[in-house]
C-alpha cells in the first residue's frame, strides 16, 4: 500500500518535473532564436557601416576621407576587380582572389551602389547572395557619388548604397 503511494507521488513529481523542463526548453529555444536574430541584425549593421566607410571606395581629398561619399572612379575600379566574373588587373590582383579577400568581411551579402539623381546607374561591388536563405536584412544608406573628373559644381550625384545581408 505504502509502496504504491510512494510510486504515485514520485510519478506526479516526475510528471511535473518533465512538464517544467519542456516549458523551460521551449522558452529557451525562443530566447536563443531571438538572440540569433539580434546578432544577425548587428552583423547587417556592421557590414553596412564597413562598406560605407571602406577606404577603397570613399571620396578623399589629400588623404582626408569625406563622410557619406563614394568616388565614382574607385567604384568602377572596384566593380571590375571584385564583382563576380571580374578578370582582375594582372596576376594575383583580381577576380576570385579579390573576392575571397573581401569574403571574410562581407560574408553572405550583396552590396550595390545605385545612382538615383541626376542619372541612374548601378555598380555591383560585392555579390555573394546565396540561392537558398532563411532571412535577408536590407539596409539602404543614401550618399553622395562624386565624379572627380567633372567640373567641381557638377561632381556630386545622389546615390543609395544597398546592402543585403543573408543567412
Amino acid at each position, binding site marked *: 500500500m505504502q509502496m504504491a503511494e510512494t510510486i504515485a507521488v514520485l510519478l506526479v513529481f516526475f510528471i511535473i518535473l518533465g512538464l517544467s523542463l519542456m516549458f523551460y526548453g521551449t*522558452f529557451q529555444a525562443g530566447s536563443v532564436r*531571438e538572440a540569433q536574430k539580434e546578432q544577425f541584425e*548587428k552583423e547587417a*549593421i556592421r557590414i553596412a557601416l564597413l562598406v560605407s566607410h571602406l577606404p577603397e571606395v570613399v571620396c578623399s581629398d589629400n588623404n582626408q576621407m569625406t563622410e557619406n561619399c563614394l568616388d565614382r572612379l574607385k567604384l568602377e575600379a572596384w566593380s571590375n576587380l571584385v564583382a563576380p566574373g571580374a578578370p582582375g588587373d594582372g596576376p594575383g590582383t583580381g577576380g576570385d582572389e579579390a573576392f575571397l579577400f573581401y569574403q571574410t568581411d562581407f560574408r553572405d551579402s550583396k552590396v550595390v551602389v545605385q545612382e538615383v539623381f541626376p542619372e541612374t546607374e548601378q555598380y555591383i561591388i560585392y555579390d555573394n547572395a546565396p540561392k537558398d536563405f532563411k532571412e535577408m536584412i536590407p539596409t539602404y544608406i*543614401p550618399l553622395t557619388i562624386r565624379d572627380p573628373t567633372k567640373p567641381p559644381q557638377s561632381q556630386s550625384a545622389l546615390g543609395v548604397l544597398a546592402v543585403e545581408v543573408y543567412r
Partner: protein
Amino acid sequence: MSAITLKRALNREPANRKLQPAASPIQKRGQREKCRQMEKREQMEKRGQMEMIGIAIVVVLIVLGATLFLTLSIKPPSGTHAAFAQKQAAQNMVDAIVRTATLCHGLDFAAVLGDCSKNGENGLTCEDGRSSCDYARGEIANILDRVLNARKVQYRFTAEKDVGGRAFEDIMTPGCTKALIDNGAVTVETPGIQPIPLYPGTLTIKLQICAPVK
C-alpha cells in the same frame, strides 16, 4: 462515532454494569481490533489530506515560479537594425540632397533651395522653365519617391525658414502627415536635419521617417 470516542467508551466502566452481562474476552478483543482499524483508517485519511495539501503547495510554487520567470525573461524585440536604418536614411538623405548638383544652372540643391527661400517665385528660372522653388520641390519629391517610397518607407520632408514660414509645401506620404505625427499615431526616430544659411536667416530642411507605433 469516531475511533477515539469508541475507545473511550470501551475503556470507561459503565454505570449500569451489573445490569449488562459481562463481555467475553473474545468479544473484547474483537472490539479492540475494530477500534484499532478505525484509528488506522482515520490516520491514513489525515495523511492523505496532508499529502494533497503538499502537492497543491508544490503546484502553486511551480506556477508562481513560471510566472516570475516569464515576466522577467520576456523582452521586447530588439529593433536595433530598424532604428539604425531609419536614422541613417533620414540624416544621410538630407546631407546627400544638399550636396547634390542639379541641372538648374549647375547649382547644388543647397543653392537652389536658398534661392527659393529668399526670392520665392521671383527667383531663378531653371533651364526647363521651372522656378527654383518648383524645381527643388519637384526634384526632391522625385528623389524621395525613388529612394524611400519605392521601399515602402513613409516620410515627411519640410523646408522651413526661421523667419517667414515654409519655402515650399511639405512633401509627404499619406502615412506620415503632420496630424499623424502630432497625434502620436506614428513614431518618428531621430529626424534628419540640415540647416542652410541664407544671409540673413536660416533655412532648415528636415526629413522625418515614420514607423507604425509598436
